[in-house]
């Protein structure tokens, strides 16, 4: 059942569209991430859901109620900001209880709810501290508790982890996800960090230049990118120009190399059609592993050690590809300048829409 829907939502600033024809239906309890580079319109869309920006066109429907023209304080939407936005003059407990006081809850109910929230974020003993006495991670947990305390219909998170260091970011995103799951609350999460979006979301909305590029589960977005933008923005990707040779057999030519692909775009294409193909680095393998579908002669150009992964750059004719291989202490790496063969499965060759 749709809990939040945005239909044909647009936002124009002077002459520029920050968001254009945005359509999305979010299920109750779903965790949806808006992913994209700076200026792609993800935060503007979130702010329109919160009511901080009025859409130029379109509707925001929450629980079957049109909230498009409602003020932010009439929407019952919890918001977590990148800069925490805790009230510096109030203690942690007062911050968490602020929304409840505004809603004129009884003192006993406020106390009870604040205790629950402090327990939820594991800061039971920090209720009397001021925000400046907490670390960044703790402050953001308090901001989360404050947003959840009012029982919002939707929880909005605007790059909540951007200001934190890498380790805290990883642990806090897991905490946010587990709290969201435990409470069953619908959440919209804005991020430019693909790893964050892939790890935390039920679905990802990839945005570019104010428009949706693709909506899908993290698995779909990563493995089956539908556009060149998504493919390049999410993960690392090898792309190359190619030409369809035989659509029925999925046969294409890239530079001087012939490739086979299962992609339906090739099967439905025309002979001689120019296409852009994409292959994930981890789907390329050196031939010793016995994969024979697509075999190319290549030359080792560079080897980069990335910790858990070793990235080998090879040239196939004029095209340069990256191959990612999981690191292990017994890994035998080729030498730079060495000539060898590389292969990938038919289903690893994707076709991108431009």
């Amino acid at each position, binding site marked *: 059942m749709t809990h939040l829907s945005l239909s044909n939502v647009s936002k124009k600033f002077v002459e520029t569209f920050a968001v254009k024809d945005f359509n999305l239906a979010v299920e109750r309890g779903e965790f949806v991430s808006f992913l994209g580079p700076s200026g792609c319109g993800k935060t503007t869309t979130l702010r329109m859901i*919160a*009511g*901080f920006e009025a859409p130029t066109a379109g509707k925001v429907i929450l629980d079957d109620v049109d909230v498009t023209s409602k*003020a*932010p*304080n009439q929407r*019952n*939407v*919890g*918001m977590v*900001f990148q*800069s925490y*936005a*805790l*009230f*510096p*003059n109030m203690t942690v407990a007062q911050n968490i209880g*602020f*929304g409840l006081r*505004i*809603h004129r809850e009884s003192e006993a109910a406020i106390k009870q709810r604040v205790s629950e929230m402090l327990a939820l974020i594991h800061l039971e003993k920090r209720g009397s501290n*001021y*925000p*400046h*006495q*907490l*670390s*960044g*991670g*703790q*402050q953001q947990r308090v*901001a989360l508790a*404050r*947003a959840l305390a*009012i029982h919002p219909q939707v929880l*909005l998170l605007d790059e909540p982890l951007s200001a934190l260091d890498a380790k*805290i970011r990883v642990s806090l995103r897991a905490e946010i996800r587990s709290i969201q799951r435990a409470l069953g609350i619908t959440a919209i999460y804005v991020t430019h960090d693909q790893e964050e979006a892939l790890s935390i979301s039920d679905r990802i909305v990839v945005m570019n230049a104010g428009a949706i590029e693709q909506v899908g589960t993290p698995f779909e977005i990563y493995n089956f990118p539908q556009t060149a933008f998504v493919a390049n923005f999410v993960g690392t990707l090898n792309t190359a120009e190619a030409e369809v040779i035989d659509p029925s057999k999925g046969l294409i030519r890239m530079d001087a190399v012939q490739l086979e692909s299962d992609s339906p775009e090739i099967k439905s294409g025309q002979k001689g059609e120019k296409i852009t193909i994409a292959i994930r680095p981890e789907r390329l393998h050196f031939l010793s592993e016995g994969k024979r579908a697509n075999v190319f002669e290549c030359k080792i150009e560079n080897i980069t050690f990335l910790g858990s992964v070793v990235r080998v750059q090879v040239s196939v004719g004029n095209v340069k590809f990256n191959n990612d291989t999981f690191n292990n202490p017994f890994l035998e790496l080729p030498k730079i300048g060495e000539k060898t063969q590389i292969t990938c499965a038919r289903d690893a060759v994707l076709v991108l829409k431009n």
Partner: protein
Amino acid sequence: MRKINLWAWLWIILGGLYFFGPLYGALDFSMREKRGILSFVAYENVLKDPNFRDSFTYSTLIALATITVGLILIVSTAYWVHLRLPQARPIVDFITLLPFVVPAIVLVDGFIQIYSGPPFALTDTPQGTNVLLMFGYIVTAMPYMYRSVDAGLRAVDVRTLTEAGQSLGAGWITILFRVILPNIRTALLSGAFLTFAIVIGEYTFASLLARPAFGPYMVLLGQDRAYEPAALSIMSFALTWAAMMLIQFLGRGAPGQGQVAGAH
């Protein structure tokens, strides 16, 4: 290294002499009303003078009214500019600097021209003239008041705090009084005390509007007496310092924005 310290001390001593020398001179002079001995006779004379009490009380009341109305006008304007019209900030900055450019004598003359006849004949009654005086003082103190409030608002993330309050269900007034104002407390106090200091010593407005304020009283006293004006100067210094210490005292509990390093 030692050379730098000597220079530093030299400048400190010179600065101290520059500031405290005249003050010491005034203090010494104010206590020499009785020949040959140091006494507080001049201070007693000032404090016993009913005109001192009346003019000081009058100016204090006008100062309080100026601070109250001024804060309402300036805080709401500065808050709105920060929140909704950041592009208008240079214009507002320019407007708030105008009292530095327009002399008080020109301003009060303009006031008298406009408000001495219908439709706004404020100078016809003492209450009306008091209101006119208060608004004149609001204009005069505006550069100081606005800058204090503006600096306070710049130090907090007004927009995000307001949006956080709104997302929790609060309206503008609640956010302003429960979130924004407590966080700019020191700035408000600083603006208020600067305004108080300006109003207490102001002469031109009060004199030309013929109000019994403290500024004209001090000038009058300076014309008639020798030691009492010096005593008044010391008293106003003491008052200003007391106000400054009060700002420090009331502002010291203002919560900071810093973060405890490593307290994850």
